[in-house]
């Protein structure tokens, strides 16, 4: 019977299945960061357990690390304690690799993993972080887990799982100029809703997805979780293989041929059946901007803020009214007329080299508008930062009035010092516009890197194609 990519990845990792379908799934790669691991290590210690396979673990510190004045260390004592706890735990338990604070390869866990070749096709990848779906771009079965599961994987190399349903999201045709994977991701969530993918593993396919770079595919899979799906994935092709060649943890030359031959099989078979198929036409996708406090509250740059009256369902109507109140927006305001206070270019969604190139292309030769208090660019990792500097992107941003920072999660969730003040409005390339996500009372609008740069230089949301 023809199999989907998800079927293949699943079947390849089954250690044992209970009668009710609960399956013990083998985990190849475990990514670890400081926020969701301390209680898991603590649990191991209390039970006198060890790591099942040290070489499966790749760790870094990202959520709490500051993005400027590294010479001062981590100022916030509780953040510092959490990072130091990870240092101590890795020292005690071991890991294949650890990139601590200030290491040149340190970075956001979902940027660091792939760029080091620690994420390979056919793997199961887990991390105590919901955006682990990112790694599905490499035809992996990758998903976020809670801290109890982190401990379970550490102690047993397995996860207890039930198989999800499968969904194919097919994006046909060609994306227009100025549009990016982020616009595709937001358009999909706008269509299926934030719970649309609940209970499913999503495979992204179609001409527009094949045309995306690996960076673009990571952006897309990153946001699968915002559509409710724990896992998103893209089949292997030449882009996947070319990206991995020569990366530190990629197969050694003598194993490369066998690995590639296997990877080539990681595609859905002709005629494989999905439980649900959703299709979009890439040519119809326009630049996306969110207006509310959930990623599904999204419209296009030539759209306007909706009115609660547009929604018949009372729960929805009230949700919209509450979101507009929180966001400080009036129904029917054109999106392109909303002024902004801050701009954040970064996060595991959009902080890779291609994202920074796209934003820099828009910022080049222009200047951040007078009403914008802060426009910051936070590379996803030390390696991205170094590459961007080699290409002169830091100069482009600095000359345009942006701040160029050290790598980390930063204002994506504001666990470090980077945050919005109450009422401030931000054009952000991150993935969540929840209440308070970027700082208590802060107002987040999700956009692509190019659209964030366009907002920075005009002072309001603007169509990047018309600049």
């Amino acid at each position: 019977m023809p199999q989907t990519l998800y079927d293949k990845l699943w079947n390849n990792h089954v250690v044992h299945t209970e009668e009710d379908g609960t399956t013990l799934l083998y985990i190849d790669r475990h990514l670890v960061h400081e926020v969701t691991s301390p209680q898991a290590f603590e649990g191991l210690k209390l039970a006198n357990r060890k790591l099942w396979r040290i070489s499966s673990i790749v760790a870094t510190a990202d959520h709490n690390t500051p993005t400027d004045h590294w010479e001062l260390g981590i100022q916030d004592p509780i953040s510092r304690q959490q990072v130091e706890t990870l240092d101590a735990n890795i020292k005690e338990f071991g890991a294949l690799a650890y990139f601590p604070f200030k290491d040149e390869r340190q970075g956001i866990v979902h940027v660091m993993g792939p760029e080091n070749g620690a994420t390979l096709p056919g793997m199961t990848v887990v991390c105590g972080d919901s955006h682990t779906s990112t790694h599905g771009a490499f035809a992996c079965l990758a998903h976020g887990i809670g801290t109890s599961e982190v401990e379970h994987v550490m102690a047993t190399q397995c996860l207890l799982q039930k198989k999800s349903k499968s969904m194919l999201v097919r994006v046909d045709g060609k994306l227009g100029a100025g549009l990016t994977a982020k616009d595709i991701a937001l358009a999909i969530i706008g269509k299926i809703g934030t719970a649309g993918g609940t209970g499913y593993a999503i495979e992204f396919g179609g001409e527009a997805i094949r045309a995306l770079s690996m960076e673009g595919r990571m952006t897309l899979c990153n946001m699968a979780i915002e559509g409710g799906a724990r896992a998103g994935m893209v089949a292997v092709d030449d882009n996947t293989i070319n990206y991995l060649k020569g990366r530190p943890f990629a197969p050694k030359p003598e194993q490369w041929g066998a690995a590639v031959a296997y990877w080539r099989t990681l595609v859905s078979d002709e005629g494989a059946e999905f439980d649900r198929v959703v299709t979009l036409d890439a040519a119809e996708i326009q630049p996306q901007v969110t207006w509310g406090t959930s990623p599904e509250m999204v419209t296009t740059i030539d759209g306007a803020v909706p009115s609660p009256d547009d929604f018949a369902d009372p729960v929805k109507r009230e949700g919209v009214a509450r979101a507009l109140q929180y966001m400080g927006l009036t129904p029917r305001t054109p999106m392109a007329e909303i002024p902004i206070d801050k701009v954040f270019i970064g996060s595991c969604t959009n902080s890779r080299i291609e994202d920074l190139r796209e934003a820099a292309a828009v910022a080049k030769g222009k200047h951040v508008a007078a009403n914008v208090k802060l426009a910051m660019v936070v590379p996803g990792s030390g390696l991205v930062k170094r590459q961007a500097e080699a290409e002169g992107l830091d100069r482009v941003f600095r000359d345009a009035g942006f701040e160029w920072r050290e790598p980390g999660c930063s204002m994506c969730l504001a666990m470090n010092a980077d945050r919005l003040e109450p009422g401030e409005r931000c054009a952000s390339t991150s993935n969540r516009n929840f209440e308070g996500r970027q700082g208590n009372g802060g107002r987040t609008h999700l956009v692509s890197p190019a659209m964030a740069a366009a907002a920075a230089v005009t002072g309001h949301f603007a169509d990047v194609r018309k600049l």
Partner: protein
Amino acid sequence: MRKFTHLKGLVAPLDRANVDTDAIIPKQFLKSIKRSGFGPNAFDEWRYLDHGEPGMDNSRRPLNPDFVLNKPRYQGASVLLVRDNFGCGSSREHAPWALEDYGFRAIIGPSFADIFFNNSFKNGLLPIKLPEAEVDIIFKQVEEHQGYALDIDLDKQTITRPDGKKISFEIDGFRKHCLLNGLDDIGLTLQKADLIKAFEAKRRAEQPWLFA
């Protein structure tokens, strides 16, 4: 893990959809390296009028009188009634830790986000999916009757309303077994260590590059 067998508990209604884990426990509390003590900060931004930070004396902070969990009639609630897509967003297990520490033992709603749903079971917190229409009725009844309590029997998989009506619910056999007996997943899985080792050896032979 604490056992869950039977619960008769006061119900508190949280009438909004898409409640995310950032709202259940805001990020500043994630800096803790412990598993306990998150209860006083559950729903922090909605529950208090000031901005909460770790280390504050929560008993002295001004409560938001409009937030439903602060209403006198819902004090002591152990069942949380919710709307669609509860627990979406971040995978933080701090969310079920906070709800459990607050005093909730069961959550009833039409749908839950996958990771949150999973995390709840690991902490003796029972999430129950019911059809939207059933949830609507309970919301209505809770509002109409002060002291509204539900009787949840995990073994029989039933919820009994104060009006006597019994509603049955679905749950995975394995999860039910673990909850009823308070079993720790890790201990159970390690009983299969030989199977895991055999699987691993085969994998190492077939795809040696994964074991560099």
